[in-house]
């Protein structure tokens, strides 16, 4: 079998695990102010990368990471190389900033078709900023390849992909001929940690930059989500009564008394 080529689509986003209130509405500019949040790779895309690396470990092949945006932070995305991706291609253009799902999928589609062939495209099930959950599926439609949503496990055998697809009451194993696209859920498992040696090596690994012209995307056709306005979410905060006690045991005992009082 020829060398397997896996493409993983990732997105750099503000940390979705950040504490409450870190992302603020900026009403003047009709946008969210996320400047207080550190930038991370979308956790679901990390799951997709982990799935790709496991297949590479098992049967060999090449993993190419694609990311669409503007002024993306190489120090965040270089992690993909440190854990074992072979290529990192940043698709960069002012018009790619905050692009909507369809436009992002369009850029990814053009970039993938420019690669020297591909067998499997993986993407996270959704991105933790807008949680739209559509880019991967639309990309599959644009590429015109079999598309499976929500994998909890992915493996390749005889140039077919076998996916354990999450369904409402369990999972369904589906099979498709390659090339195919699969969106990956967190059940796959978290991304491995890079070794110190790999972190150091990745600093010398070249990162490729592809501009809009190079992937033949017309900037004026890129769209952003059509935001009318943002509204605050219903307030979730409560006043917390901290349980006192000289030891953890005593705190546990005091908590039991309070709960008995509340719930009988």
């Amino acid at each position, binding site marked *: 079998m020829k060398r397997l080529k896996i493409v993983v689509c990732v997105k750099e986003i503000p940390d*979705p695990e950040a504490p409450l209130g870190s992302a603020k509405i900026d009403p003047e500019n009709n946008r969210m102010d996320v400047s207080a949040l550190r930038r991370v790779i979308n956790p679901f895309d990390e799951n997709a990368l982990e799935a790709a690396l496991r297949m590479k470990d098992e049967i060999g092949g090449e993993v190419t990471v694609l990311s669409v945006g503007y002024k993306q932070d190489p120090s965040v995305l270089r992690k993909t190389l440190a854990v074992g991706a072979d290529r990192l291609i940043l698709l960069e253009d002012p018009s790619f900033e905050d692009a909507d799902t369809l436009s992002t999928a369009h850029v990814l589609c053009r970039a993938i078709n420019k690669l020297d062939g591909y067998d499997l495209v993986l993407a996270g099930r959704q991105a933790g*900023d807008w949680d739209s959950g559509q880019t991967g599926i639309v990309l599959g439609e644009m590429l015109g390849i079999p598309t499976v949503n929500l994998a909890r496990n992915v493996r390749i055998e005889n140039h077919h992909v076998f996916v354990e697809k999450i369904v409402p009451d369990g999972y369904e194993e589906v099979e498709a001929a390659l090339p195919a696209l699969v969106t990956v859920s967190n059940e796959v498992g978290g991304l491995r940690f890079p070794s110190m040696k790999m972190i150091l090596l990745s600093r010398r690994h070249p990162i490729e930059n592809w501009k809009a012209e190079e992937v033949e995307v017309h900037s004026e056709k890129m769209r952003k989500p059509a935001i009318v306005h943002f509204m605050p979410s219903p307030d979730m905060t409560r006043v917390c009564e*901290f349980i006192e006690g000289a030891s953890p045991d005593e705190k*546990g005992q005091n908590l039991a*008394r309070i709960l008995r009082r509340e719930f009988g």
Partner: protein
Amino acid sequence: MPNSCVLVCGNVKDRILDERTLELVGAGKELADNLNVELAVVFLGDEIDGIAEEISAFGVDKVYKLAHPLLGTVSPELWVKALQDLCKEIDPKIVLMLHLSTWSDIGTRLAFRFDSVLTTDCVDLKIDAIDGLLLRTKPVYGGSALAVLKYEGFPQFVTVRPHVMKAAHREAVKGRIVDISVDIDPSAVKLKSVRTVKEEALALDKANVIVAGGRGMGGPEGFEELESLAESLRQSFDEVMIGCSRPAVDSGWMTSNHQIGLSGAMVQPDLYIAVGISGAIQHLVGMARSRKIVAVNSDANSSIFSVADYGVVDDFKKVIPALKTTWEELGREKA
């Protein structure tokens, strides 16, 4: 346009009507009245006569039946084709689907084929009085804010978060049931189903008490401690279940049917005990509506305390066993 309508995609669960469909009918009714168009529901499946009859009593004008042996199980490819043909024929203004994995998959592909935009996980829907377009409200940044979006292009597609909209009621006049012939070709299916595995369904949204653990559990052993506490609580509460936050699933300590939050279950039990959970927003939106919230975490700065009624800042490995023992003792005293 006389034929235009608001179209609700009905969901079937274990061969019976998924009650959450009625929430879509309720929301669809308001939109249809506002636009002065009909309200229609569509069902796909192999045997859907009973369900079509049932839904026709809930204030809908029409029920479209897309019955075909090949639609008996959900195949996104075939369902999208069947719905695409129906939409071409009846030209709906708006198409409503439940925000479930199946329907976001179908909805995404369907909207793409109409060169229209789908908005997923909407919690509110209104019609813009000026241009008649749908105003779609959805939580963003894990629930930090709500975004209101508006797009041109028809049909307008949305998936709606379950348990948010008010369900429709029975009405005296029944809607008309319309059989639609389905033209699908099995050779168009590129995905082959190998096997289906049923997993224990956990009705976390039905629990009275949820004891949930997160990254701070440090491993699967921590959850044994929580299960032991849950066992004691079962003497006082009907349904006590174990929940978890996403890191516990990512680490392989718990299966995803226990996951609570934006990408898991949305719950509001009488009592929620969060142990070793830092309180990422995407977890908080899934549990912050619980009646009473207790948080146990060794880090006093954890976000979880900002949504809790009671907090314990200490090591759960000591706090939880003490809580369990004293809870049991007090129970015996009372008896």
